[in-house]
């Protein structure tokens, strides 16, 4: 069965006819065409699909699209301002927080959620906030440094 889903996606209100059993990650990628959100596992294990729902991080692969009706969903595509990278995106680029890049959208969205609620996190707080996001490439140190770099910039 399909029903109308109304939500705000990256600051734009939209309505779509969406199957009741569709996952949020599939809605974002297949219906909205936003393929920045990745799917890295078969159910809640890796964090690659992390998006923001009303400023809080959420795993889009263990969320049904209809569960976020009426909410504000933000994906990696929504972070760019005027076509340029956000501070966090730049920091990941400059501090080598990304290698193959598959985990990066999820990492950045989880980090974005952290910095919105805690603009000046400690190293331990960064580690705790990213604990559910797995990366096969970087060894995590560069990722933590990237978030620290972005938070320093924000604090200034």
């Amino acid at each position, binding site marked *: 069965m399909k029903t109308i889903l109304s939500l705000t996606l990256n600051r734009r209100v939209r309505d779509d006819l969406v199957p009741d059993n569709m996952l949020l*990650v599939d809605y974002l990628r297949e219906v909205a065409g936003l393929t920045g959100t990745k799917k890295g596992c078969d159910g809640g294990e890796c*964090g690659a699909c992390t998006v923001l729902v009303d400023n809080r991080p959420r795993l889009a692969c263990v969320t049904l699209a209809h569960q976020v*009706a009426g909410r504000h969903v933000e994906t990696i595509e929504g972070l760019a301002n005027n076509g340029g990278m956000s501070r966090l995106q730049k920091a990941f680029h400059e501090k080598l927080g990304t290698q193959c890049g598959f985990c990066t959208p999820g990492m950045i969205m*989880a980090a974005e959620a952290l910095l919105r609620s805690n603009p000046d996190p400690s190293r331990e707080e960064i580690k705790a906030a990213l*604990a*559910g996001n797995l990366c096969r490439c970087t060894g995590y140190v560069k990722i933590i440094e990237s978030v620290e770099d972005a938070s320093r910039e924000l604090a200034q």
Partner: protein
Amino acid sequence: MELMPSFRFHRPTSLAEAVGALTLDPHARLMAGGTDLLPNLRRFLARPGLLVDLTAVEGFGSIQKMADGGMRIGAGLTLDALIENDYVAADWPVLREAALTVAGPTHRVAATVGGNLCQDTRCMFFNQSEWWRASNGYCLKHDGDRCHVVVKSDRCFATYRGDLAPALMVLDAEAEVIGPEGVRRLKVAELFCDSGANHLNLHAGEILVAVIVPAAEGWCAGYDKVRVRAAIDFPIAGVAAAICRRGSRLCALRVAITGCNSAPVQISTAEFDKTDWDTATAEAVATAVRKSAEFRRTSNVSAKYRRHVLHAITVRLVERLWMQGSSLTVR
């Protein structure tokens, strides 16, 4: 796109409406945060005709301190909100401690107290994709007729791995359940039965509404668990304990475990009540725990290892609580 069983989605705003939806459709299934149910649905481990989402039910996620010093936690409260709650941190820190070890931070934003308690049991032959199970052979928990863990058994030994249940059990918490017959209350421990394929004592159409935690003054309670990946995993063994201490006297002790049997288990510890603490007490408690714990090959961590770590964390926890208890005054 992900293959998913097909189902209808319903979002009631009241408990009466939710119970009504469950009663009308025998193939309906409840969902709260979805962090346990949806991965299972993606693996076709259930085929509900209707999903009843509880997160829009008015007041379902509330938390209140009661006049008698206890606390009422709505089943829809997220683990994140439980962790952030000041009453919980001050008066029932064991709940915060246990909730902080559930899954990862992003799961906890969506995961609820009710979903945590009612989560399905787990087994390495069950929590697998459809194609994995098809090639290995289905088992009697779902779709099949035999058990791969205890081959000659006609029951399922899948393991209960929820972290909150033992913490609530050592606080002597109660569960409030609503259903077609009205509201009933039972001990959290009585919510469960030791059967991997049918581990909840909930009747058709029933919903867990809240847990009621009595005041814990004079008790010192804590939770400890071992997991493969410290950032995100289910317990391979978990233990909660509450100690009431007066000087060198152990006035009362409660212990409950998870990650072993098909239900969380309250350990009978009456032999330790009103005894004098000595250096052998913690070991003796751990030995009592091991007698009640059952380990089967339901995970890829060996039963022997899980038995060892359960013993070790029980000793560690009970000793820690005993030390902490020295600074408490008991009325």
